[in-house]
């Protein structure tokens, strides 16, 4: 049998198992008496062994086999798990990970493999002999007092509890809610129904996606899973209390076993295929827009009707493809407990990592792009933010530092916050450096958060006082900033001395299709992504003022700085003397800006085309697109303009 064609599947499935093993090891380490993790670990490593053997990757299968032996011995109660076992198993997972990639590439196992095999064998041989005394005390440096042995182990179980959500008990239910067809704003109503359900249990697998609720044509049907101890009648009553609910369907969800069976109906698709499909769907959208234009011009009612029908179908296709690409951010978040643990241990720090909003979904491509920046910021937080335990004690803080990652769905974007309760960024030092490099006025005495971010995101500017092994090599916020901006996202920073630092990354839900506003400046048309458009106004209707050196508009008692695009693009005079120009108000996080344009041309879904900015291209363009009539247009980068 030619197994080569299964290599991709082997890699992806092994990685899933290894990812799971990391999670299980972390859970087990926190709670060494627990039996569930060791069972899961055993199953996972056993699967990897079987797959590796089938693929003919004998050394890899052998390594997995030795790991399995150790787990089997603990599982069978031959001896209790010890601190050094966790270390060994973590290393085994790492070695398997490297080994999977190497084997698939036809390379030998990395050198560490042999040593690990020996160490694993030795651990099984030694078994319960020796090594228990004081183990708890040596562990993880997380403990504050000098308690030893068992007590300490119980102590360690604590950190596993602060799960932000109360874990609901009771059966898992499949719920289908239909909002009354005559009801207004069905999406908002459906969201209320969802809120009612959340009040009595744990909601998951919500369909449709959150963004659908905002659509005016939302059909009022929402389905989700609910784990609750409430009786069906109570569930029904709770959901109906949202008002305008036509029906509530409640079924016992198929249990885990059956869920596994239904998984058989899933297939794995190469992401490249989905990319291709997405691109085709995108082109279909452009063609549809063109068709609608032609149909309207022709004024043929039948043609218009057909055009609209095609339009709906294309919308549905696009929605399905988008949906298929959505991936919960959990997939990236799951890497962090391990990263945090290893780094904290290396640095002698105590760090608790809290993850929230792992269920929020993002386009796979966006998620892949933000993974590295997130890892970077988490490492930064632990390395530079969180202080050593004794410094924290001196500052009156708990010895254990907190790093929190939160994903939050906003209108058309997802915000990911990375915050720590550490020492904050030392502004005075940055200020000195910034002055030395001429980035701020020499007379400046302080830096705002915004200035701070601007200075930090200068290429090569490092936040580290001492260049550490971890993150201070001069590659830092600038890389994060560049990556996020290239996605059409934005970065915000807030840092308080002594209290910690928070980064907020905002990224669009998907990269491929962007709802946009088309504007005209001079003879050219430009695209402004709607994600950042808060409203449109007329220039002359607003009182003018100034903000520092800049011209500004008063919008509801707030001064918003103005950018005249015609001046910026050097097309002044192309449209002569027209005073009543439209203004597009942009909001990127807390920042606002007003763009004065020559005309608003309406909303449009546009397909972002790959875009290599020519050298010397100003930074305020974030991409390009082809408009329905076939002409190209540049996409404005809102974050660069406010």
């Amino acid at each position, binding site marked *: 049998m030619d197994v080569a064609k299964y290599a991709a599947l082997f890699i992806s499935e092994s990685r899933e198992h290894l990812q799971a093993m990391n999670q299980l090891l972390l859970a087990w380490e926190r709670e060494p008496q627990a039996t569930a993790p060791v069972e899961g670990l055993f199953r996972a490593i056993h699967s990897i062994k079987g797959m590796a053997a089938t693929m003919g990757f004998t050394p890899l299968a052998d390594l997995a086999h030795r790991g399995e032996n150790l787990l089997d011995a603990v599982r069978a109660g031959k001896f209790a798990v010890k601190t050094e076992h966790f270390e060994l198993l973590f290393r085994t997972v790492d070695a398997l990970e490297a080994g999977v990639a190497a084997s698939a590439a036809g390379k030998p196992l990395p050198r560490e493999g042999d040593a690990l095999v020996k160490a694993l064998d030795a651990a099984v041989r030694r078994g319960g002999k020796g090594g228990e005394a004081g183990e708890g005390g040596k562990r993880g440096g997380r403990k504050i007092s000098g308690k030893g042995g068992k007590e300490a182990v119980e102590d360690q179980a604590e950190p596993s509890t602060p799960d932000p959500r109360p874990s609901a008990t009771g059966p898992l239910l499949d719920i289908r809610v239909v909002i009354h067809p005559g009801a207004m*704003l069905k999406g908002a109503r459906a969201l209320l129904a969802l809120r009612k359900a959340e009040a009595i249990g744990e909601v998951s697998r919500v369909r449709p996606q959150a963004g659908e609720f905002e659509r005016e044509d939302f059909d009022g049907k929402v389905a989700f899973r609910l784990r609750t101890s409430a009786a069906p009648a109570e569930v029904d009553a709770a959901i109906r209390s949202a008002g305008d609910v036509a029906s509530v369907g409640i079924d016992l969800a198929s249990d885990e076993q059956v869920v596994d069976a239904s998984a058989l109906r899933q297939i794995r698709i190469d992401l490249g295929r989905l990319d291709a499909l997405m691109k085709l769907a995108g082109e279909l959208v452009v063609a549809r827009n063109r068709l609608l234009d032609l149909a309207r011009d022709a004024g043929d009612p039948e043609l218009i009707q057909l055009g609209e029908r095609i339009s709906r179908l294309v919308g549905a296709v696009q929605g399905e493809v988008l949906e298929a690409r959505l991936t919960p951010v959990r997939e990236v978040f799951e890497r962090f407990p391990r990263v945090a643990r290893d780094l904290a241990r290396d640095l002698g720090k105590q760090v608790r990592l809290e993850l929230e909003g792992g269920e929020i979904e993002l386009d796979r491509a966006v998620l892949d792009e933000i993974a590295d920046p997130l890892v970077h910021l988490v490492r930064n937080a632990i390395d530079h933010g969180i202080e050593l335990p004794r410094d924290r004690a001196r500052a009156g803080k708990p010895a254990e530092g907190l790093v929190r990652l939160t994903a939050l769905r906003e*209108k058309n974007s997802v915000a990911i916050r990375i915050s720590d309760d550490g020492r904050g960024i030392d502004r005075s030092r940055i200020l000195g450096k910034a002055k030395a490099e001429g980035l701020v006025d020499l007379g400046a005495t302080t830096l705002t958060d915004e200035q701070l971010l601007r200075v930090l995101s200068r290429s090569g500017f490092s936040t580290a006082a001492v260049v550490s092994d971890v993150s201070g090599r001069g590659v830092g916020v600038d890389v994060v900033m560049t990556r996020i901006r290239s996605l059409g996202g934005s970065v915000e920073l807030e840092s308080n001395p002594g209290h910690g630092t928070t980064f907020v990354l905002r990224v669009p839900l998907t990269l491929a299709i962007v709802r946009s506003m088309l504007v005209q400046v001079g003879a050219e048309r430009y695209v402004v992504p709607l994600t950042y458009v808060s409203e449109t106004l007329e220039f002359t209707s607003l009182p003018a003022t100034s903000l520092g050196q800049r011209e500004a508009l008063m919008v*509801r*008692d707030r001064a918003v700085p103005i950018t005249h695009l015609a001046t910026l693009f050097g097309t002044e005079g192309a449209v002569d003397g027209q005073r009543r120009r439209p203004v597009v108000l942009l909001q990127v996080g807390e920042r606002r800006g007003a763009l004065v344009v020559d005309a608003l041309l309406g909303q449009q879904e546009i397909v972002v085309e790959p875009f290599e900015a020519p050298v010397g291209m100003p930074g305020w363009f974030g991409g390009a697109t082809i408009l329905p009539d076939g002409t190209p247009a540049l996409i404005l980068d809102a974050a660069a303009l406010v």
Partner: protein
Amino acid sequence: MGHSVLVCDDAIFMRTMIADILASAGYDVVGEAETGAQAVEKYKQLKPDLVTMDIVMPDMGGIDAVREICKGDPDAKILMCSAMGQQALVVEAIQAGAKDFVVKPFQPSRVLEAVQRVLG
């Protein structure tokens, strides 16, 4: 005495109408606000059982006002008053903490139903 209500809308017409609907059903309209900022201020001052909140108001819109009020009192009972075609805004308001909504043009019975739902 019925539940106390704070009515927030920038149009006197709407405020009067909502206040009349509520008063006729025995609710006690204890205050009115015509901007979001006023709504936040009066909420702190009056601690009403219920707030009706217009979405589009000058000086802090209704959604920001909901956010502000819920920051101080997560249990605040706020009923959004929206127009047709404001689905996305209402969704945002609910995410910000609003408990229910009614859609203009108002039918008194719908308003009262929603008020009862919110007051639970």
